[in-house]
Structure formats: C-alpha cells, structure tokens
C-alpha cells in the first residue's frame, strides 16, 4: 500500500519574526515505517510536525501525504489520514468526558451514532482505557491522559501517526506501557522525541535535525551510535548503545 507514503521535499519555513525554522528538509517515509525525528531544542522538530497535518503550510517545497500534496484545499484530507498526538495531552483533551473526546473525530467525519460509538470504544479498548469512558479527562493521571490522547487519534482511523514527545511526563511504568503500545501499531509512525532509549527500542530509522536541516537519516543504531555526530548536534549516545559493538 504505497499510498501511506509521507514525502517531504525541500521544505522551508520561517516564522513571522524571521526565525528560519526549516531550511530545505527532505525525506521519504514509506508505509508501516516507524521513524524517530530527533534533534536538540529549536532544531525544527515541532515546526516539521506542524507541517505534517497541515497546520503550517510550506513556504517552499512540498509535503506529500498519500495521494495529496499539502495545500489549503487538501489539508482536511491530509488531516484525516494523519493522526497527530500533541505533546501536552491537556491541549488535546477538551471535551467533558473521555468518551466524548474520543468520539469527537469520528463525529466530525459525519458518521452515524452507532458507528461513532463503535469506533470510539474500539480505540479506547486498543489503548486499554475503555473503563474510563465516562470520566472527565482532567481527572486522569498523566499516563492515562496520554493513552486517551492516542485513542482520540486512533478513532479517526489514520494511516499515519505523528507524535510529539509521547513519553514526556510519564513515570517509568507509564512509559513502558506506551512503548509496548506503540510497538503493536501497524501505522506509519513518526515520533519526535528526546527520549533516545525509546527510539532505540521501537524506531529502526532516525532522522536527525539541526538548524532546520536534516543532518543524518538512516539506521538508528548507526546514527545514535555515532558519538561524535550526536555530540555535535547537542545530543548524547544512548546508554544502551554504549556497550554494543557493531561488527
């Protein structure tokens, strides 16, 4: 199924204050891949992510998701195939109950009440949070919020999952659950994170950004294992790769 390809070509973007956040970023992610986008603060990760679901429009270059090249007209279609999980679940959960929040996406597509219910419950069960359906989201723990935020996106049946710092604010057990959950997904996954151990565990491929440009794009073990490269871009070689010797 080649139509779940995410392709970014020579993407450039500057904020109104003149900050050049992206300066010619290109990559191609194919169906079912799990790719980490890493880089220090201000490297351009968030700006890149905001282009992937059409919140920001390319100033130069092209973003292609499936059959659509991103424009104002195609943005609604792109958003339907890209599920975006925000960094702060409090931004993502705005409805009075967990169920309402998960049902929000399917309702907006105009599905019938029965289908909405079905999809919302399937998504909640997928993340193991079906028992929280009637609870108000702001009363949940950070781990539960994160899982519900993921469910709100899953209920829209996206082809591509884009996540911004999915493991932030999670305790070790919550983080472990998240990793196990992400491992089970068959979607194309794009994860922006500073949690390099998580990258080692679930992402075979890494795109390293710095100063709005792709510095490296390739196998996780090679890029994260390259201590000099990592240090140059404000990162560290993850501990789990310190004692591994590639042959």
């Amino acid at each position, binding site marked *: 199924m080649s139509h779940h390809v995410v392709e970014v070509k020579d993407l450039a973007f500057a904020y109104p204050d003149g900050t050049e956040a992206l300066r010619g970023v290109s990559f191609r992610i194919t169906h079912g891949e799990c790719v980490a986008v890493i880089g220090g603060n201000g490297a351009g990760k968030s700006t890149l992510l905001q282009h992937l679901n059409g919140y920001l429009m390319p100033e130069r270059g092209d973003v292609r998701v499936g059959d659509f090249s991103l424009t104002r007209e195609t943005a609604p279609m792109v958003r339907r195939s890209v599920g*975006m999980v925000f960094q702060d679940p409090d*931004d993502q959960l*705005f409805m009075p109950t967990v169920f309402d929040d998960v049902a929000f*996406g399917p*309702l*907006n597509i105009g599905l019938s009440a029965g289908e909405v219910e079905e999809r919302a419950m399937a998504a909640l069960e997928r993340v193991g949070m079906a028992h929280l359906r009637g609870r108000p989201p*702001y*009363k949940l723990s*950070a781990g539960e919020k994160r899982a519900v935020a993921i469910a709100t996106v899953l209920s829209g049946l996206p082809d591509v999952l884009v996540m911004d710092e999915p493991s932030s604010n999670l305790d070790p057990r919550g983080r472990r659950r998240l990793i196990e959950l992400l491992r089970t997904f068959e979607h194309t996954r794009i994860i922006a994170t500073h949690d390099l151990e998580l990258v080692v565990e679930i992402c075979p491929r890494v795109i390293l950004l710095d100063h709005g440009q792709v510095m490296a794009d390739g196998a996780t073990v090679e890029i994260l294992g390259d201590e000099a490269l990592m240090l140059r871009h404000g990162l560290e070689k993850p501990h789990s790769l310190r004692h591994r010797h590639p042959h």
Partner: protein
Amino acid sequence: MMSGGAANFLEVGRMDELARLDSPVHRLDARAQAITTIVFILVVMSFPRYAVSALMPLFVYPVALIAAGNLPVGVLLRKLAVAAPFALFVGIFNPLLDHHVVTRVGSFPVTGGWLSFFSIMVRFLLTVSAALILVSCTGINRLCAGMERMGMPRVFAIQILFLYRYFFVVGDEGLRMKRSVEIRCAGSRKLGFRVYGHLIGQLLLRAMDRAQRIYRAMVARGFDGEIRLMEPTRAGWREAVFVGGWTALFLATRIWNVADGLGGWLTRSGL
C-alpha cells in the same frame, strides 16, 4: 502540566459533570430549556423597578429545576457568590440616590432606593441561577448546538462555545502564574503596578498560545466549525409541555401579584 488544581478552583468540571447527570430535566431537549430560560429572564426583567414581593413566586422555577434535576445547591450557590459583587455594584448607589419613601414596614420608612436595590438583587438571583441551571442541565455543547438549531448564527454559537472553554483556559494559566509569583515574592504582598502589568500581559499571551494549541487539536480531528453531537436533538410533547407550562406560569406571575393575592386571600379568609 497539571490543570487539576485550577480546574477544581473554577469548578469547570463540575458544570460539565452536572450536565451529564440523568434526570427528567436533563433528558429534555436543550432548545426547550433555552427558550424557557430566555422567557424567564425576559419576564423577570420586565417587572417594574420597585417590584420585590411580586418577584418572589418566580423562585419556584429555579427551585423546581434544582429539585427535579438533582443539582447540588452548594455548587450553584458558590457560583452565584462569585457573580454577586457585580450585581451589588449595580444596585449599591440606589439607596443613596433615591430617598423617596415608597412604603413602610411597621414604623420603618422604606425608600425607593432600598426597594430598587433589593429588587436588583432578587432579579440577579433569579436570572443568574436560571442561567446556571440551564448550563448544568444541558452542558455547553448541547446548549450551543440547540441554539444553532433554533437559528442562532453559527458564528455566535461557536463564539459562546469557545468563550466558555477559553475562560477556564485563562483561569488555569492565571492560577499557575499566581503560584509562581507567590513562590518568589516570599510572603510580601507588595507588588508594584508594573509587575501586575507584566503579569496580565503574560497571561494574555500564554492564554492565547494555549487556546491556539487547543484549536489546533480540534482542527486536527476534523473540526470545521460545526458542532456535532452523539444524541440527536428531538423535541416532542414533553418539551412542549415544559415550555408551555412554565411560560404560562411566568406570565401569570407577571400579570397578577401572586404573593400579595395569596396574602390577601389568607387574611380575608381569616387564617
């Protein structure tokens, strides 16, 4: 990250929680409740300025809905208390300006100023509690969708929806800033105007940022300006009885002074 504390302070969740209760009132269509509330407020506002006793029978509406809707009185009273200072300021100068004696209670002369002041407070209690009850029995989403169905322009419905959501967003940010100020000013309460100016500016910027992110999350999930609900709105004979019955009662209290009438009838029949 946690918004729990602030949410508790403003009790944003409480109103949403109340709206999810199940009661005969909650099961009514939001439109019926909205219309009845609007009629109620119009009737309350239409009373002459010195009316106090004539307004009393109207308390039956909030009391009946609180009882039928199983609403916690404490929560509603706290919200009324938050809004009370505004009403107090509107009416507080009346007793100073209007010294004309209108009636006597025993040997005490009651001036028009005091009477109109009490009238304002009673009206405030009636209208604000009716509005609070409306939101706690329908929930803001259902209410806005209902209003839109009744012909309110969508732009207004969405404005109200966001105003309600963002009100709490701003409160939330404000509370966090208050906390960080308290931590750093080490007990002294003397903060200059300049600091407050900066704080308010900051608050606005932060709240706008956050509102932006929430809006982005909504758009990301296909929000296109239309409020969609799970349960379809439907109005039947229950709604008709609700609107018709209450409207008739409100108009009756407006035309006849029920309290005076009842008092007169009781004294005349020698009870």
